[in-house]
């Protein structure tokens, strides 16, 4: 499986066809008529076509990085893209406030997605909060390929845990005990016993770091989808670097999915909120 689908050059305007709430999250659907099919783990840069700016702190200005959650073939040859968004600041607030019929600027797909587990390995998906976004489409694809893709998800509270309905048969942990295990998703992971699995994980930095440390300790291969502040998404600004054992790496170009073995830590400066 390829890990990178090339992006058409230049941003394109697409129509938002739906915006629905799923608990604390918004699921935005848009019709990417000219776009190619992305690979799970890749992302897009998104901006509202109208009034991008003028929000809190007179922002946003640059577009916002966003994993696609699911991509399906459209009737007319294009791709129907679903994004899962959480309103955490002026950029995501503006995106979440868009109505069906309004337009988005979209650039992508960008970066490299997940690599399949080695033959004979299961997949174990570990997501925290909004980190479920890239895992959902990946779970679909793994299951379609007959690969087991058990999923452990952690959320802050019940309204966020509603996001669990977006994936197939997940085990859930919540910080406040409102659903599933009262505790952290990494406790669910720690309780896993198989070793013939590759872990695929996305979530807040502290969670990813816990996943990384646990997997390193147990010698389990892990692929982590990281976040960092981005301005361009295509390697132009050198702004999104994360430190790896081999030096700084541009997350938008050589990530966002990174082999955990490359990292000394998954705690990225300035990421998360």
């Amino acid at each position, binding site marked *: 499986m390829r890990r990178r689908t090339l992006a058409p050059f*230049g941003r394109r305007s697409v129509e938002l066809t739906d915006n629905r709430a799923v608990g604390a999250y918004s699921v935005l659907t848009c019709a990417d008529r000219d776009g190619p099919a992305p690979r799970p783990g890749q992302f897009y840069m998104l901006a509202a076509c109208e009034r991008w700016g003028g929000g809190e702190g007179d922002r946003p200005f640059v*577009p916002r990085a966003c994993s696609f959650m699911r991509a399906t073939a459209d009737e007319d040859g294009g791709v129907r893209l679903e994004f899962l968004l959480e309103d955490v600041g002026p950029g995501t607030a503006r995106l979440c406030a868009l109505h069906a019929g309004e337009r988005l600027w979209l650039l992508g797909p960008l970066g490299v997605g997940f690599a399949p587990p080695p033959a004979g390995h299961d997949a174990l998906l570990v997501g925290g909060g909004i980190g479920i976004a890239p895992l959902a489409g990946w779970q679909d694809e793994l299951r379609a390929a007959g690969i087991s893709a058990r999923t452990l998800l952690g959320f802050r509270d019940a309204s966020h845990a509603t996001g669990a309905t977006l994936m197939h048969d997940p085990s859930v942990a919540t910080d406040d005990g409102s659903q599933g295990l009262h505790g952290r998703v990494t406790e669910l992971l720690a309780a896993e016993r198989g070793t013939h699995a590759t872990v695929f994980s996305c979530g807040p930095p502290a969670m990813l770091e816990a996943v990384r440390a646990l997997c390193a300790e147990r010698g389990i291969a892990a692929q982590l989808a990281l976040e960092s502040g981005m301005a361009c998404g295509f390697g132009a600004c050198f702004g999104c670097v994360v430190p790896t054992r081999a030096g*700084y790496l*541009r997350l938008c170009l050589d990530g966002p999915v990174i082999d955990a073995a490359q990292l000394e830590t998954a705690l990225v400066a300035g990421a998360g909120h």
Partner: protein
Amino acid sequence: MIDFCGIELAGRVINASGTFDAIAARRTFGESLRDRFPFAAFVSKTVTVAQREGNPPPRLWELPAGLMNSIGLPNRGLAGFIEHDLPELAGLPAPLIVNVMGFDPAQFVLLIEAFGELAEVAALELNVSCPNVETGLEFGADPQATAALLERVRPLTDKPLIVKLTPNAADPPAVAEAAQEAGADALSLINTLRGMALDPSTARPWLGGETGGVSGPSVRAIALAQVHAVAQRVTIPIVGMGGVQSGRHAADLLSVGAALVAVGTESFRDPAAAIRITAELDGIEIPGKSGVSVREAG
């Protein structure tokens, strides 16, 4: 075709150094980048003698209508650039301008001697925003230091030398004039303005590099004033930049005396922005009657 310091260009819009990595863009967009290459000339990110990792993250802070960065000039260094980057950049469908920076005049000499010999390189842009160890200021803030540097490197090459001015100066036109007198073939401006932001949760500087460079729409009016002031004082061509987002913004820079316009931060919002800007610019007449006609390069 436009003649810029003896180089033939297909248009007036180029990229600002450090805001477009053609190699990374090709990995992302494939051959569609070459088919619609957005710039009439391609300017490399700054190359230094030694390889640099750049500043620790975070490197970006978003501003009201702008961006602040503390990238810290990561690059492969002179040898690495020539070995790895140059072959691919030389194949771009536009002349190549290599931007260089030394931390002292001797390093500039090394860089200019090396690139001066390479046929793939159409011109050199000198980033003089480096700190001058003697004064603690940026080289480019000081007319004397800039002139001395130019006098030293001018004899080393026949290739056009473009001096990139810093806006963090009391008198950019004086620096421009000094550079022209010392043999610069062209000037480019503005580089970023020094800025700072604090992490709201710690009240410590947000950027890994503590201070950063401000770019984008919020510097546009400042850029226009500086290009205008410099154009009043020199006769060599000027590459104007700072917050250009539209053909109108490009036209404004040309109207006050720029020969070319560079697009920087706007390419982050859309890698193909310069294509749109070039098209919009084509539709705008720059009134020669305004007293400041579009200055052609000599």
